[in-house]
């Protein structure tokens, strides 16, 4: 009797591996496409990018100009 290297179990295992691979690749593609869409939409693109964010800096009351006293 010849030994069969490919058992039915291997087929099922393979379908699981291939399926998971496809799902993972699909997920990566999805997140990438989502990123492109979100960036294109702009909207709330404000991050800590080494620039002072006006919305977060404390409000500074304008100082009244000092009147020069004329002599």
């Amino acid at each position, binding site marked *: 009797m010849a030994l069969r290297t490919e058992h039915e179990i291997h087929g*099922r295992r393979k379908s*699981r591996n291939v*399926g*998971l691979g496809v799902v993972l690749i699909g997920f990566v593609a999805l997140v990438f496409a*989502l990123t492109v869409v979100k960036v294109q*939409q702009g909207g709330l693109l404000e991050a800590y990018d080494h620039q002072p964010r006006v919305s977060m800096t404390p409000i500074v009351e304008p100082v009244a100009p000092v009147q020069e006293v004329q002599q």
Partner: protein
Amino acid sequence: MTDINAYEATPEAEFGDFVALLKPRVMSLVVFTAFVGLFVAPVDVHPFIAFCSVLFIALGGGASGALNMWYDRDIDAIMNRTQTRPIPSGRVDGGAALGLGLVLSVISVMMLGLVANWFAAAFLAFTIFFYAVVYTVWLKRWTPQNIVIGGAAGAFPPMIGWACATGGISIESVLMFALVFFWTPPHFWALALFMKEDYHKAGVPMLTVTHGRQVARRHIFAYTLVLAPFALWLGLTSVGGPLYMAVAVVLNAAFIRGGWQILRRAEETAIADGYAVEKRVFKLSLYYLFLHFLALLVQSWIGGW
């Protein structure tokens, strides 16, 4: 002495078995109603964002299905209809189903929050909790009203879809919820009348067994009456219109008539003709829900009132 050993059959699942854990047929209802809820909302959503939103709502629904199959593995093994499910048939290990359900729950909720908004994500998390814990663990084996309250889990998707677009709840989304919620009991009890499943053997209280089939018939008719005003009310809101109203009037009249026929039938008559009316009303209930949501979709496309 022999050297031959029989190993315990290790579950060697194929990919399709894990897909089956997510209850694809239930998922199709979730996908359709969530999509309609999102599409008819008054806020424009980027098509890809809409696609991803519906995808992760469906994935969350699938995750709750896997959790349901994990918890119900003992009664699934007893009932004929569910014996071929992945866990009772031995193809998937119970722990694997639990893990899949939990992981997919977290992924779907987090992704929906990132894709749409965190209100919709919290809503999805609540729905998963409601189906997996409130319905499956608590209500299903405790009260014959299980499917009434459990039906809420199936009714949330259009509200989540609406929340993805608008970030909130409004009368339209609540009425879409009511449409699915009050539709569920007559739909399932009509099925229970002719499917005569071995629920009682598995210890699941079904109204047809605990209170008798005549009570179930009365309940079916009562729910078709309760359902109709909500279906028509939805037509008077911003998502309604002449087309939806026409569809709703016809379908609700037909559904109430079907409920009335079920009520008037004696069990002997039903047995004699092989539950012809019950089967017809069950089929009608499928069209009922599908056509209502399809009408909403078309109405939103052509413009409402």
